[in-house]
């Protein structure tokens, strides 16, 4: 038995899902897409029931990855029962998607969630009327209070049925549907999609395309518009008769503060600054704790084992990689994710996107791009993964370049450990300054030369609500899991590789080879190149390797301030880490991954060389 939750974004699907399944969630990547499906199992009356949380969508006709995934899921009958989750406060708009879902004729029940919020707004929903209109069982729930969530499963198993609701389309469309069915035997839902130019059946598409063109000429309106209008009209009719507006309680509208230029923009900057600051403070505290524990209880005992050198080298590399993953992934990224999930769940992120739209435009992006950019300060890997919220390849490409340059928390460690500690805190900030200038310049150039179209921002503002600790935690945990599964194996493999290189003396040869660049161009000691090389593996390792190779933790005594400064800025700009390159490859393809790597290497060396020349 398989049940799928389906609905618009932000209707409380995840919360319902979490309450139904508990925390034992698996994330499955749907074949051929980067969208995640969350699945969980529950036992009900001695039967194992699998619950799937489909991604939130607005429509089934679209071409976004999420929409295609859900459409395929429905077409293939991916679940035995669909639980359509609707937002009680926005019933009319939510019914639009419901009308589309019924066209695939799955067995379905309707869950009208957030009824507490609706009551607060004085909306009264007539369940019987709604249920008779939709032709399915309707259940009112309030997931934030856990109200009636336990009734979902029994109803889904007991009284799910195929909805009787059918959208009455414009008579030209209906005629077209009939003739397509007669001539090609196409089912209604397929023909509707084909009329809008979606589908795989060439014959059907051609036939539907010809009819659609005629309809468009006659109506002076696109078929999409006609179909959407028909669906909206039906939704409006249903909502109008099933929902009554009672007394409305007056509430203070926080948006009058948050979405204005003042004080909205200062609030946005303060929130982002506070987020980064707390990640840095909490992160470094936890990092120290974890790394220390790890060193004392695992690494030291391991080195004391006195294994044969090759074995020891390999074992040591694995342990170092584990330490790096746990020492960075956990402290910085998890803290960051907690903050981010908090911002998302309160609904603030959409306000941030709205306010940032103009600034992002200057960079060739739009408001929604602020989300990957902010994530980039935590870790570049999930930031690249979140790029798919941007709709065009052009924006994804530009944002990928910028994200790879944003100083992530690991690079923060290099700046703090090398420059802030030995040169001065203001000099450390100057590195940020230089990097930001370079990011802006890169963006300005890229927005001019990147091919493709620019797509503006269309974002539904999610309602402001109090976040649920449980959901925030679950979300952060899911994300960190994703990171661990992608980054960890790469870290371990690369670590072993580098360990072997060192063992067989390849790194020395490399050092000799690039000596002209390191020594002459950048004015650094020869061993710095090895440290930079290790930085590819994980950024803050550049700093640690430097300390090991120079033979002292007091870097100030072996290198001049200028050398330290140059080293830091080169390693911050220089090539994203190996995990980033891997996700770039997966998300955007080999060409972009290579371009970004080459560009950042070039940028790092150029900036380092220029500073070296200026200082001389």
């Amino acid at each position, binding site marked *: 038995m398989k049940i799928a939750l389906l609905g618009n974004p932000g209707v409380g699907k995840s919360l319902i899902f979490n309450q139904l399944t508990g925390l034992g969630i698996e994330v499955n990547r749907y074949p051929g897409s980067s969208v995640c499906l969350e699945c969980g199992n529950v036992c009900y009356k001695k039967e194992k029931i699998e619950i799937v949380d489909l991604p939130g969508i*607005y429509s089934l*006709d679209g071409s976004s990855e999420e929409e295609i995934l859900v459409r395929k899921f429905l077409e293939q009958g991916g679940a035995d029962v669909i639980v359509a989750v609707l937002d009680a406060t926005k019933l009319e708009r939510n019914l639009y998607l419901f009308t589309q879902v019924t066209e695939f004729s799955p067995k379905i029940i309707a869950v009208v969630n957030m009824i507490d919020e609706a009551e607060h707004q004085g909306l009264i929903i007539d369940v019987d009327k709604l249920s008779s209109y939709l032709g399915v069982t309707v259940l009112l729930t309030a997931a934030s209070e856990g109200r009636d969530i336990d009734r979902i499963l029994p109803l889904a198993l007991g009284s799910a049925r195929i909805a009787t609701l059918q959208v009455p389309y414009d008579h030209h469309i209906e005629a077209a549907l009939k003739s397509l069915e007669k001539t090609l035997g196409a089912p209604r839902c397929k023909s509707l999609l084909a009329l809008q130019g979606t589908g795989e059946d060439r014959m059907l598409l051609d036939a539907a395309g010809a009819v659609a063109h005629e309809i468009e000429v006659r109506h002076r309106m696109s078929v999409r518009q006609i179909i959407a209008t028909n669906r909206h009209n039906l939704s409006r009719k249903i909502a109008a008769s099933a929902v009554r507006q009672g007394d409305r309680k007056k509430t203070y509208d926080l948006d009058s503060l948050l979405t204005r230029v003042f004080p909205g923009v200062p609030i946005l900057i303060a929130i982002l600054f506070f987020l980064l600051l707390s990640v840095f403070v909490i992160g470094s505290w936890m990092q120290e704790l974890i790394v220390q524990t790890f060193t004392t209880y695992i690494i030291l005992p391991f080195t004391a084992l006195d294994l044969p050198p090759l074995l020891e080298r390999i074992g040591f590399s694995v342990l170092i990689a584990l330490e790096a993953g746990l020492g960075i992934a956990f402290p910085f990224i998890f803290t960051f994710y907690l903050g981010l999930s908090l911002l998302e769940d309160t609904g603030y992120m959409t306000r941030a996107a*709205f306010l940032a739209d103009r600034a992002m435009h200057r960079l060739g992006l739009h408001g929604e791009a602020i989300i990957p950019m902010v994530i980039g300060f935590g870790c570049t890997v999930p930031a690249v993964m979140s790029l798919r919220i941007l709709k065009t390849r052009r924006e994804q490409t530009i944002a990928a370049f910028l994200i790879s340059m944003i100083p992530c928390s690991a690079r923060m460690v290099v700046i703090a450990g090398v420059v802030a500690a030995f040169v001065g805190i203001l000099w450390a900030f100057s590195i940020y300054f230089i990097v930001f200038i370079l990011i802006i310049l890169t963006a300005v150039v890229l927005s001019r030369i990147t091919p*493709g*179209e*620019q797509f*503006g921002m269309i974002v539904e503002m999610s309602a402001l609500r109090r976040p649920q600790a449980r959901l925030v935690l679950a979300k952060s945990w899911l994300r960190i899991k994703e990171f661990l599964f992608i980054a960890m194996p790469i870290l371990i493999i690369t670590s072993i590789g580098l360990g072997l290189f060192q063992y067989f003396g390849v790194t020395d040869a490399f050092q000799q080879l690039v000596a002209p660049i390191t020594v002459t161009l950048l004015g650094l000691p020869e061993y710095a190149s090895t440290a930079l090389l290790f930085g590819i593996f994980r950024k803050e390792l550049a700093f640690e390797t430097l300390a090991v190779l120079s033979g002292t933790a007091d870097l100030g005594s072996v290198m001049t301030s200028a050398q330290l400064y140059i080293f830091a800025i080169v390693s911050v700009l220089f090539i994203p880490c190996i995990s980033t390159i891997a996700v770039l490859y997966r998300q955007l393809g080999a060409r972009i991954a290579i371009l970004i790597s080459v560009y950042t290497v070039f940028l790092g060396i150029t900036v380092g060389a220029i500073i070296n020349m200026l200082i001389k």
Partner: protein
Amino acid sequence: MLPSLREDYLEAIQQFSEKNAHPPRYEELAAVLGKPESGVRSDMEDLVSSGDVSMLPGGVITLTGQGKQTGESVIKKHETLQCFLSEILGMDSSSASEEACTLEHAVSDETIDRLGQLIVKQDGLRHRGWGRHGRQMSTTQCTEEDFDCQCPSISDCAEGENVIIHCIHGRACAKRLLDLGMVPGERASIKRKLPNGALVVQVKGCDVALSPEIASAIGVERSS
């Protein structure tokens, strides 16, 4: 037979076959062109001998490969010219069509290609930043809906105003807007307008944030 008459025939046959999904018979072709059936019959014999047309039993006229190619090329010329005359030069569409009927026989392929490019470029300029629309628009899709709407755009309205959505230009963004309920005839109110033109529009009880260039593509009527 005059070359222009031959082209007119081939164009008409091709158009008829495209529109009705079956090739025309004598009387149908005659009706379309407004000519006597007997004249059409004798002209068809000429076209058969020039290898443009082949006759099927029952008086059904089908185009040969050569005839089809010519027919299609003439249709394209006609549409490009009509689009150019009406959209770029601003002539009214019926006289543009008439004029195009005369010009289509004399104009070279290169001229048509360049005109087509010009139209696409103009369209691109008109919809700054809306590249997708510009690229998708082949000269055959000179849709009126994108041009004849003179209503103010939602980005011209002030914060707090109520409007009725009238039309949406540009196809790239239209789908998401439709899904969010921004269909012609729908009421909307402007909840917030930033100095840079970004808007929060309330439609169907939901707040939707829009970039300035998206907002400028939504035509509205003001309502009280």
